[in-house]
């Protein structure tokens, strides 16, 4: 199955879409490009902390609202850490263009975990005390064992989960290097899961150390090898952040927060997404020098022979 076919088959208008990775680490960027190319309507996005994935989806809504629209977001954090705030988040929220439900990183991770466990809810302490419990569907109960307040969070079971991993086999058994983030939980919780991977390898190699498998095949519906599939974000053992590119992209959106023109952003989408056939064509636009430098940076601090 190609990524084009997987997106066409598993992402439907109105879906709740679970986004894997963490901030700009292992975000499902290639899949998001394909979604933008094909268009989408009335999506709900669910994630703990995300960056380029929602930014690309929201940017598309800002330039082509007829083609791409987000209805609702359930999230803990949308921003880019060292690379700055998310201008698209500000644009959409401050104009009242989308619904949203604030949670924390642990809240969202625990909600996916409840979904992955087949439970309708999970208790956590996280949202107690502050306003998150007031603006979300949290139910605070008195614990029947201790008598103290505890929060119950509703499970999150997205219609489709989007996950990028280092390696997988054709059945969907996935190996994740570095932090798992909340990817296994999202994959298990979602009705369908699309996995993109840096390496597609034989079942025998993938299962040679079964404990490396973080997502087992029953949780996965489509596996597509897409090298650099999380770029310009980072992917452990493969490439470090291309911060320059992230900053440049954000700089195209930022003026729109204050009412500026969408022309530059529109041109970016036309060139990088609508004007290309697939994600490989987008990666082709980067200089080899830069791609190799980002690989080298990662291999330096990852300290591992290839």
């Amino acid at each position, binding site marked *: 199955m190609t990524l084009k076919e997987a997106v066409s088959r598993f992402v439907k208008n109105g879906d709740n879409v679970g986004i894997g990775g963490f901030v700009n680490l292992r975000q499902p960027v290639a899949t998001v490009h394909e979604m933008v190319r094909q268009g989408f309507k009335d999506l709900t996005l669910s994630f703990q902390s995300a960056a380029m994935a929602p930014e690309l989806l929201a940017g598309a809504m800002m330039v082509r609202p007829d083609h791409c629209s987000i209805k609702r977001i359930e999230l803990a954090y949308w921003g880019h*850490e*060292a690379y700055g705030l998310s201008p698209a988040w*500000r644009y959409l929220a401050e104009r009242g263009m989308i619904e949203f439900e604030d*949670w924390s990183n642990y809240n969202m991770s*625990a909600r996916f975990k409840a979904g992955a466990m087949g439970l309708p809810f999970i208790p956590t*302490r996280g949202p107690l005390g502050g*306003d998150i419990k007031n603006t979300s569907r949290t139910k605070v109960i008195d614990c029947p064992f201790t008598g103290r307040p505890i929060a119950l969070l509703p499970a999150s079971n997205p219609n489709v989960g989007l996950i990028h991993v280092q390696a997988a086999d054709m059945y969907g058994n996935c190996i994740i290097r570095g932090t*798992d983030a909340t990817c296994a*939980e999202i994959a298990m919780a979602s009705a369908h899961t699309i996995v993109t991977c840096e390496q597609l390898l034989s079942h025998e190699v993938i299962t040679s150390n079964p404990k490396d498998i973080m997502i087992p095949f029953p949780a996965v519906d489509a596996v597509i090898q897409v090298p650099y599939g999380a770029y310009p974000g980072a992917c452990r053992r493969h490439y470090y952040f291309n911060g320059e590119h992230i900053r440049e992209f954000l700089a195209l959106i930022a003026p729109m927060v204050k009412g500026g023109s969408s022309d530059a952003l529109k041109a970016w989408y036309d060139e990088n997404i609508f004007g290309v056939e697939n994600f490989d064509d987008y990666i082709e636009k980067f200089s080899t020098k830069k791609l190799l430098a980002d690989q080298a940076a990662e291999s330096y601090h990852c300290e591992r022979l290839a």
Partner: protein
Amino acid sequence: MTVSTDYTAQEIIVVAGAKILENNKIVFVGTGLPMVASLLAKLTHAPGLIPVFEAGAMGPPLKHGLPISVGDSKTGTGASYMKGLNAAFELTQRGFADFGFIGGAEVDMYGNLNSTMMGDYPDGYQKPKVRLPGSGGASDMAASCERTILIVPHDKKKFNEKLSYITSPGHLDGTPGARYKAGMQGKGPYRLITTKGIFDFEEKTKRMRILHTFPGETIESIQAATGFELLVAPDVTQFAPPTVEEVRLIREEVDPNGVFVKRAAK
């Protein structure tokens, strides 16, 4: 040790943050200046400091330098544990984090923090005046770490009697046992570091209290930049300015690319 004469506001925050951290303690580190302060602490008086990053890593030696993100691959190399977000927060909820180190865009006198929205709450929640990134893991750290250290740039508009939104609960309304009654764990805000000084929260009232003034500031100048009445500790002292060596460490070793500590001179 020679005192620096060109340190920036961010650099004194970083030095203050580092000094509050204790060796061999577990600190749950939020993104940004807390990461810089933790790395500086590790390079100076607290080599055994054990950072936890919410994306999953605990206890990395950080010998490849400052992470750009709490999910950065640099946090993983040599770590003593690395699962994912649930595992990091479960460990914290279980009570293993001695410190939580978090920031916010707005703070009140009880150390409650807002990093969600500025505007009219609750009516304007779905259409805020300024939409901030959201809690991230800050509210979880606030609810479960043994003690929290807060960083907020000092600005009258950010030090308010009433927050637009309480993202990360501190001492709530300051009443005795308020945190416990709400179901939280840990003692709550321990120190607040701003661009003007260091604060604690007075034992009984849990109200923000000046502990140390930064060079160039006085109790009066700090009160003037604060939107509520501050308490004043009986023995307020001036916080020593960063040394030349501390500033050199920040600029050359901790954050040589100015990822979080901006390069503009004070």
